[in-house]
């Protein structure tokens, strides 16, 4: 999960100032505050303190259907049937102890774990799962492939699909399960604030709730009591990244999941023995997406040539402070490490900087360079277009600027256009744009990613609103593979198909992949130990991911 784009901007501007201020106060800050930070630490040693940088104030709303749900609702209070860990590419059974997919791929049966209780003492039953999905479909929609959800016996739930649908496992498995005995009595589940949540998670008891901080205490009936080693979780509200970064630098929080510029200096250097960071590239792939409904972007050679002109090393270094790695020809982010086709990776050419080759390809495709060194289109007009990025995202803006400079070397003129994000996204949605820096779907299985990148089902004509496949690229060959993938029940077949999808992706270049979004995460192990690291990637350091509960059940107070 990458961070919200609009906020990042403000925070980068702010962070620059924060560094300035840090530099000003210099070493005295380090020496001066270590004493007071320690004193604070002992006073609240039992609570794991986490900042939330994009909420100035909290609203007591633990309804997972609310678009503005209180943090930790889906991480500490409610749990899902299984947990997929993108950092390692493995799946942990959670509320379900096991599952089996039908031979024909048209259903999956989950077996619920024995002995799981809700925080009010009631047992977890199949009806809970059935009710959860009924509510989810009614309130939020989606799950169109799902035909019926039925309880089987005392501990099994069977999901039947309209057609074979293998991506369903993670889609179903990662939804937060709600208690039927509570939610079936709520009159208006869309709008209920669910102030006293009943969940199966490790920390369900809302202890104090104030506008700028709240505390969740232990679930008295948790199914893994031996793993509840922290006394509770305390969330702090910050109206921007700078405040949260300050709290982190000051040692007031244990976990700092927000973006920190120059983290070595602002955060680590204050206490290198206890402070660590880890940014696995498991966020969504960030692409430079060209509107393929327009010429010359409908030409594969043009897309590949433009891609070869981009210096991704420079892009990640300047635009992303070197916090991530350049993309390769598979177009897959670190989230899909286990799915990557080694052949495609080895033979990769069009995502590597090669100005000569880019020039040759553009010449060959019929976009000649004039005497002034600038290329023209087939109709004689200059080869010029815009790259649209929201004004707020300063990091992506510098990415776009680097690209524009790179393109000048092959005689192509790109102008960076940066109105407000709302205007940019409105352009993406209706197809009224040349190109833009765009995120992509990020799911445990690569199905949605490829469907949104090159499935014809997601292509809408220009003028009609769409929320995926902004670049409007459809490939019938990819469609055939996607259909095959959906019907494939066993994992080996799925991997074979995804290998082919990557070959196809690399052949047609639907978009120009730049880099995988990193998942920010830093921690301070003065008070708690047992954090995930690059060497032990049992989860990512995100506080909003499905794997967050794995961290919450692994941490223990420092001795």
């Amino acid at each position, binding site marked *: 999960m990458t961070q919200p784009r*609009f906020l990042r901007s403000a925070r980068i501007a702010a962070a620059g100032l924060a560094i300035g201020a840090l530099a*000003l106060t210099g070493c005295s800050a380090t020496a001066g505050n270590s004493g007071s930070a320690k004193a604070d630490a002992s006073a609240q040693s039992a609570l794991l303190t986490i900042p939330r940088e994009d909420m100035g104030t909290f*609203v007591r709303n633990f309804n997972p259907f609310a678009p*503005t749900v209180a943090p930790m609702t889906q991480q500490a209070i409610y749990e899902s049937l299984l947990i997929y860990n993108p950092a390692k590419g493995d799946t942990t059974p959670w509320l379900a102890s096991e599952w089996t997919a039908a031979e024909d791929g048209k259903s999956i049966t989950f077996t619920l774990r024995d002995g799981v209780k809700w925080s009010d003492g009631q047992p977890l039953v199949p009806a809970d799962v059935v009710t959860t999905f009924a509510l989810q479909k009614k309130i939020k*929609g989606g799950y169109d492939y799902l035909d019926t959800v039925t309880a089987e016996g005392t501990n099994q739930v069977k999901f039947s699909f309209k057609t074979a649908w293998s991506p369903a496992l993670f889609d179903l498995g990662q939804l937060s399960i709600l208690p039927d005995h509570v939610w079936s009595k709520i009159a208006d589940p869309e709008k209920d604030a669910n102030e006293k949540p009943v969940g199966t998670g490790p920390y369900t008891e809302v202890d104090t709730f104030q506008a700028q901080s709240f505390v969740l205490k232990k679930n008295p009936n948790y199914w893994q009591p031996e793993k509840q080693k922290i006394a509770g979780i305390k969330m702090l509200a910050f109206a921007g990244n700078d405040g949260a970064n300050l709290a982190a630098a000051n040692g007031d929080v244990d976990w700092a999941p927000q973006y920190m510029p120059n983290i070595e200096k602002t955060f680590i250097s204050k206490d290198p023995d206890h402070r660590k960071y880890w940014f696995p590239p498991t966020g969504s792939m960030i692409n430079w997406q060209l509107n393929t409904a327009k010429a010359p972007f409908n030409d594969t050679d043009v897309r590949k040539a433009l891609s070869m002109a981009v210096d991704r090393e420079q892009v990640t270094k300047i635009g992303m402070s070197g916090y991530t790695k350049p993309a390769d020809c598979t177009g897959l982010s670190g989230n899909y490490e286990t799915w990557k086709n080694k052949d495609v990776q080895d033979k990769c050419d069009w995502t590597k900087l090669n100005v000569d080759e880019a020039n040759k390809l553009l010449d060959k495709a019929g976009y000649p360079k004039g005497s002034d060194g600038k290329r023209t289109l087939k109709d004689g007009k200059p080869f010029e277009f815009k790259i649209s990025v929201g004004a*707020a995202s300063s990091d992506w803006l510098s990415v776009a600027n680097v690209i524009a400079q790179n393109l000048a070397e092959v005689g192509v003129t790109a102008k960076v256009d940066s109105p407000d994000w709302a205007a940019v996204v409105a352009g993406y949605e209706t197809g009224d744009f040349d190109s833009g820096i765009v995120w992509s779907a990020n799911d445990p299985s690569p199905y949605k990613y490829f469907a949104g990148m090159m499935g014809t089902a997601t292509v809408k004509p220009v003028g009609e609103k769409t929320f995926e496949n902004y670049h409007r690229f459809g490939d019938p060959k990819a469609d055939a593979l996607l259909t095959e993938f959906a019907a494939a029940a066993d994992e080996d077949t799925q991997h074979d198909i995804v290998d082919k999808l990557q070959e196809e992706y690399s052949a047609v270049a639907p978009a120009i992949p730049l880099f995988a979004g990193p998942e920010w995460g830093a921690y301070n192990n003065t008070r708690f130990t047992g954090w995930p690291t690059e060497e032990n990637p049992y989860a990512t350091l995100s506080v909003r991911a499905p794997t967050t509960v794995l961290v919450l059940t692994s941490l223990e107070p420092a001795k």
Partner: protein
Amino acid sequence: MRFILRRLGFYLIAFWVSITLNFLLPRFMPGDPVSRMFARTQDRMQPEQIEALRKLLGVDDRPIWEQYVDYLHNMITGQMGVSISRFPTPVTEVIASQVGWTLLLGGTALVIAAVVGNLLGILAAWRRGGAIDSALPPILIFIGSFPYFWLAMGALYLFGVTLGWFPIRHAFSDTIEPAFSWEFMSDVGMHLVLPALTIVLVSVGGWMLGMRNTMIATNAEDYITMAEAKGLRPGRIMFRYAARNAMLPSVTSFGMSLGFVVGGALLTEVVFAYPGVGYQLLNAVQGLDYPLMQGLFLTITAAVLLANFLVDILYVRLDPRVRAN
């Protein structure tokens, strides 16, 4: 009385114009809250959930005049709907829970800045060319022209982090419960110092200069010379004769500023993580949260107009010339 009625009529029209603009402006912005939210959460929201969310949040495609009629009706009856960025909390509740902190912060800072600034202005003008007059204005203007953000960050680091004199975030410590106790109130007071101080620092120079300049003009008036010739005490001349007459422009700016306090000190709230409406307004604009934006703008407009109206009435008391017209 006729004067007041006429002013009242004027304010009603101004109010209608501003709430109409308030209705139109967000609707001229491109995009809608749901796609905005989608872009914001990026890969965390499924495209097929968007329609459902639109319905849930009541983003409507009705003709604009129908929306306008509804809007006016809601404004008059005080129903401002449900906030989108704070769904499903009603707009009135969002504003009510935060406007108090903003008023406390903005009000305290304004009163201190105005009182201190005006007093300094009076003294500077009275001892023209003296120490206060030659040293303070340039210093205060220098400080005031710092980018606020920078100044606030600097103060936060110096007094909050390095020296540890004041808390560095929030309106009160999260270890104590709000109550009408000495402990809680002093805690709130401590949390107020840094944010209020930085606002005072950047605004006090303006107050001082304004007052100083009018005071100098007033000091040249014949009645001051007359009072001096009569041998009145200098203090009396300074406050009762000169300052009282030089006050008028300051009263106007005080009234105007009072109205704007409601809008919140956005940057202050962001730097100090203070729970006011300023940050909420920024959020509402970024998230295209029409109902909350409208609720906040309405509150701010009403506050500004009300403050102006009160100043108008006060003026009649203070300045007889206004009465004559």
